[in-house]
């Protein structure tokens, strides 16, 4: 107890039951590791976004779009209102995620599970929207190998979608652990770390939505 109180006063997580020994930063290795991972993910998505920006100018190689300038891209290819709703759904999933973490710190298991399931549902809705969007594009003739623009587009948004899917799997695992009684207030940091990943996926979509879909 004394160790817990000391660590708490310092603002750290050092004495968590499930997170082992103290660190001289006052941050658990798991949490620091997740932040380092997210920092490196910035490079991955930075590379994919800048590659897309370079190849975006190759849109005119898409059959039917020979005379299309990038200015008209939004009206010809994307369904912006639909994507805006998808963005809203993902943003709201970040809210439910942070409310789940908050509920767990109060050891309110019922609310935590409700918010966790809501997050999974919203994430799955976003993914379903992405599948619908991809299907609509393919029906219009814009496949992965149609041209270099489409390859860059599908690679970028597909990588993001894969991250959302991994996030959903992680959250489902958390839900299963809570049903087994393994997710309690004393190890709320486990859910907080999963939440960090989820929020990062949301933050990346904030950038993709503007850079890929809205800026002409």
């Amino acid at each position, binding site marked *: *107890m004394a160790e*817990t109180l000391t*660590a*708490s*006063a310092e*603002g*750290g*997580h050092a004495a*968590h039951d499930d997170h082992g020994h103290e660190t001289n*930063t*006052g*941050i658990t290795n798991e*949490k*620091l590791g997740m*932040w380092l991972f*997210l*920092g490196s*993910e*910035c*490079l991955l998505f*930075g*590379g994919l*976004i*800048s590659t897309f920006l*370079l*190849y975006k*100018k*190759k849109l005119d190689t898409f059959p039917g779009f020979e005379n299309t300038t990038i200015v008209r891209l*939004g009206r010809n290819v994307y369904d*912006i*209102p639909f994507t*805006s709703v998808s*963005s*809203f759904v993902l*943003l*709201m999933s*970040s*809210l439910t995620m*942070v409310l789940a973490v*908050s509920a767990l*710190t*109060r050891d309110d298991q019922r609310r935590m599970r409700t918010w966790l399931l809501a997050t999974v549902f919203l994430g799955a809705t976003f993914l379903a929207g992405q599948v619908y969007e991809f299907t609509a594009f393919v029906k219009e003739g814009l496949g992965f190998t149609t041209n*270099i623009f489409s390859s860059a587009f599908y690679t970028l948004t597909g990588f993001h979608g894969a991250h959302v899917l991994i996030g959903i799997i992680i959250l489902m695992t958390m839900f299963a652990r809570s049903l087994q009684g393994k997710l309690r207030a*004393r*190890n*709320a*940091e486990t859910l907080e770390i999963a*939440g*960090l990943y989820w*929020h*990062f996926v*949301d*933050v990346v979509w*904030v*950038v993709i939505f*503007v*850079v890929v879909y*809205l*800026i*002409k």
Partner: protein
Amino acid sequence: MSAETVATATTGHPEHAGHGGAVHESHDRTYVKIACILAVLTFMEMLTYFESIFPDGVERYFAVVLLVLMGTKFYLISAYFMHLRWDKPVLKRVFMTGIVIAVGVYLIMLTAFNFWNGPGVMPH
């Protein structure tokens, strides 16, 4: 272990000490407010798609407006939802290092490929 101790130990935010559940209730309200702001900002972003509702000539500023809105949303999510506002500063530095390196490297790459001035030397 009291509820206050649990709350403090699990969040690690110094200002939580001695407040317990009350702090989390107030944080929950903050989270909802931030979500509302994010929703409004997303709606504003979507409005730029409907150019016809704006006076002529305004659309030339859309790119700047969109980047500002994007930056604001990015800040709100990372500061409040990801707790960087309350967490140890070293975590902010770790994340910012990744962002700065990524932005720097890829701005150089885009410049090298003459991205800012027409097609340039784009690979086929």
